[in-house]
């Protein structure tokens, strides 16, 4: 199974107020997915801050 997302660009020629098809492009963009290591880093920082506040209120 493949999944993805991105932005589609529909180009329409415009002449005398009327439209006609020119092109249709779909460009894929990487989804920002948090890495487990990043989550661990952020979580550890939060835990340290929370502990410091408890020890030195």
């Amino acid at each position, binding site marked *: 199974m493949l999944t993805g997302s*991105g932005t*589609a660009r*529909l*180009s329409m020629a415009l002449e005398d107020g009327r439209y*006609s098809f020119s092109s249709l492009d779909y460009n*894929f963009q990487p989804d920002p997915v948090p890495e487990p290591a990043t989550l*661990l880093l952020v979580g550890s920082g939060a835990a340290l801050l929370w502990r410091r506040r408890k020890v030195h209120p």
Partner: protein
Amino acid sequence: MGAPCPGLLRLVIVLAITVQVSATSAAADPVRIVGGSVSFDTGDPPAFSLLTSSGQLFEAEAFRLDWPATCFFQCSPGVAIPISIGITESEDLSMVFRADGVDLFPVMDLVISAQSVTLGSDIGMPNGPSVDFLRPFTFAGQLTGYTSPDRIGTPSST
């Protein structure tokens, strides 16, 4: 050596569970498309290239696009143009499909889903004699490459 602070211990356990759940869901995720494009216009043959999160590069020519070609010729403002499309392999034997540079015979069933564009109601960006309309889209499907033209046996690429 004293017992660890119960609050800190609780936090460490919660963190460990969070990381484990995150790692498990990432491992179970389908292969994601991280680059590439699908393009067609009124002149050149359509172009297709996909780069996946596992590093595979798929390219194809002469594939089949299932698109309701509303406004391919002239139409007036107020018309809604669907831009969701289906992509399948062409029945034309001259189709070219490559996975990581190797020519293969594909089985494709891909769907790109996006909201329609309504001419006149949507604000487009002028681009010379054309007007461009942008829409976010999502993509899902199956893509398998076989070394034999009968497309049976063990796929060499998915």
